[in-house]
């Protein structure tokens, strides 16, 4: 088993550069998730690791081997596609064993590996079926099985759960996590769903426009984002941002109708900033500064959508028996060390 190293990896399509020099170290048997909005280059980056896209510049290493110019088949990777990409004319067992069969492995060995994989993925009852007779979740399991039988050093997942319905997605998420525990191989997983990223990853790589915004463990990114983009991307519902201005060592936030003292290095007065507050760190109090526009009761928690006096929108998480109603006027309070400050111009975190 081996890790993956990207050094200054660049991808250009003609004149257009889409990946701008990525450096990344993925450890052995780590579960690494590339996350970012659509078009950020996460799938491209994964396909470059797979060898399906050519790397324009830079170097990709799998373990000690430089694989930058190798064919996909020589890289020791297996890939699971968003669309499953099962061979429709072959049964489940044939689908899983096809790669081995084509590369001249003996039949007994193939059968044994397929049986082992189908046991792990609970596909034993379906081995004789064609893909069209399977449900979406089963198809995705076959696609994963096809990757497992080859015993690759690195598993690559390209948004594998995007085509499943919400319930199956949760189920398969757990399944993939379990699989990672069992197999212990290095896995790279691409998704635009931050919940998948948070729940599965050992390490999250947040990408935007072909650049890495931040790399870290899920909770580190959640607690300690480097910039406004990461802060807004990680966490659900997203962090609230309110415009503010620095006044003599304090932050004046019109949206809260108050001036906040934050335990950070306050920049020079007059700087435009944004204060970031997570919905779960806000508490509603008696007051008349904010109006409740809408509430979503999910059972254990509710999300109240508030409008500030300045017309900005804030989401507040509510627990307990007392919940707000539409049209209520409320105040807000929070612990100042939970609030984060970002420079409006550079979007960087002010610590």
């Amino acid at each position: 088993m081996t890790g993956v190293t990207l050094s200054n990896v660049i991808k250009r399509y003609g004149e257009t550069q889409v990946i701008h020099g990525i450096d990344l170290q993925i450890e052995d048997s780590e579960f690494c998730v590339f996350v970012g909005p659509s078009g950020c280059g996460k799938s491209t980056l994964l396909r470059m690791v797979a060898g399906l896209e050519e790397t324009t510049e830079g170097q990709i290493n799998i373990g000690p081997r430089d694989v930058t110019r190798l064919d996909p088949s020589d890289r020791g990777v297996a890939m699971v596609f968003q669309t499953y990409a099962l061979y429709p004319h072959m049964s489940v067992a044939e689908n899983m064993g096809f790669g081995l069969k084509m590369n001249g492995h003996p039949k007994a060995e193939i059968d044994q590996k397929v049986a082992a994989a189908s046991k792990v993925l609970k596909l034993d009852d379906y081995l004789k079926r064609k893909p069209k007779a399977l449900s979406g979740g089963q198809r995705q399991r076959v696609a994963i099985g096809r990757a497992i039988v080859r015993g690759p050093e690195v598993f690559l997942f390209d948004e594998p759960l995007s085509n499943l319905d919400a319930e199956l997605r949760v189920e398969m998420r757990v399944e993939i996590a379990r699989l990672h525990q069992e197999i212990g191989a290095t896995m790279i997983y691409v998704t635009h769903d931050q919940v998948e990223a948070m729940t599965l990853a050992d390490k999250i790589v947040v990408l935007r426009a072909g650049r890495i915004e931040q790399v870290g463990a899920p909770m580190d990114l959640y607690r300690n984002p480097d910039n406004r983009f990461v802060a807004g991307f990680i966490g659900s519902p997203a962090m609230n941002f309110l415009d503010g201005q620095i006044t003599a060592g304090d932050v004046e936030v019109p949206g809260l109708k108050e001036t906040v003292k934050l335990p950070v290095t306050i920049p020079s007065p007059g700087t435009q900033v944004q204060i970031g507050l997570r919905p779960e760190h806000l508490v509603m109090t008696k007051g008349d500064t904010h109006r409740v526009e809408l509430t979503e009761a999910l059972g254990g928690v509710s999300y109240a959508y508030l409008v500030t006096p300045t017309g900005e929108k804030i989401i507040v998480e509510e627990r307990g028996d007392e919940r707000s109603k539409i049209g209520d006027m409320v105040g807000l309070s929070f612990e100042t060390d939970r609030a984060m400050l970002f420079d409006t111009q550079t979007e960087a975190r002010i610590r």
Partner: protein
Amino acid sequence: MFPTPIEKTSRSWQFTYQSLLPLALIMWLLPLIAVAIFSIKPAADFATGNYWGAPTSFEGLTNYMAVFTQSDMPRYLMNSFLITVPTVLGCIILSSMTGFALGVYRFKSNLLIFFMFVAGNFVPFQILMIPVRDLTLQMGLYDTKMGLVLFHIAFQTGFCTLFMRNFIRALPFELIEAARVEGIAEWRIYWFVVLPLMKPALAAMAVLVFTFIWNDYFWAVVLTQGPEAQPVTAGITSFNAQFGVAYHMLSAGSIVAALPPVAMFFLMQKHFIAGLTLGAVK
């Protein structure tokens, strides 16, 4: 619903429809019906001018037997098969490969080559009559089945490539990528992944080309002469030879000649299964 089902329209319209439809149908099929009836008439009926009346005696069996025993028809039919089948095979083999190359690989002149295949279809083949005849003469292929086969393959492959390439383009490309990541050689991807999925296209293509080639008259006349190499479409004219036109034989021969394409269509029908790729993706 549109159009309104006929059962739901007014009584008078239903009546009009039900009487006009068979009429139109008969008018349309009249030439075929005439040929069918001619083919069971005795030769004497044509001598006495009984073209459109009922046959004076039923000679179907005799006529059809005569087609096979007293004429060169079996020879011509054989020629037709020996020309059509290799052409269909050649076209399908070549065009599935060119289609794969043009549909799967990205290379500089891909589009240019593809457009050349397409453009070839727009050249009216009649203007090539003399050069092609000269060419076959020089190559010593004039009046041979081989000459016709080679020529037909060359001409049909353009259209088939267009068809195949577009079909392969419509296949999910992830299938090919998945196979590549699994380390499957390109020719094996073609053979074991793409070709099985192209079965409906291959079947449709085969029927189409079979019909084209079987029914070809123009090139059969230009490039061949006599029972040595001529296919049935050209050979059938030997019935209007020096002793006048043997209408009954001509008709019986025509019907025999028309059967293979029809049979081909019904045989291949079960292969036209749409949605064979169902279950590949999503």
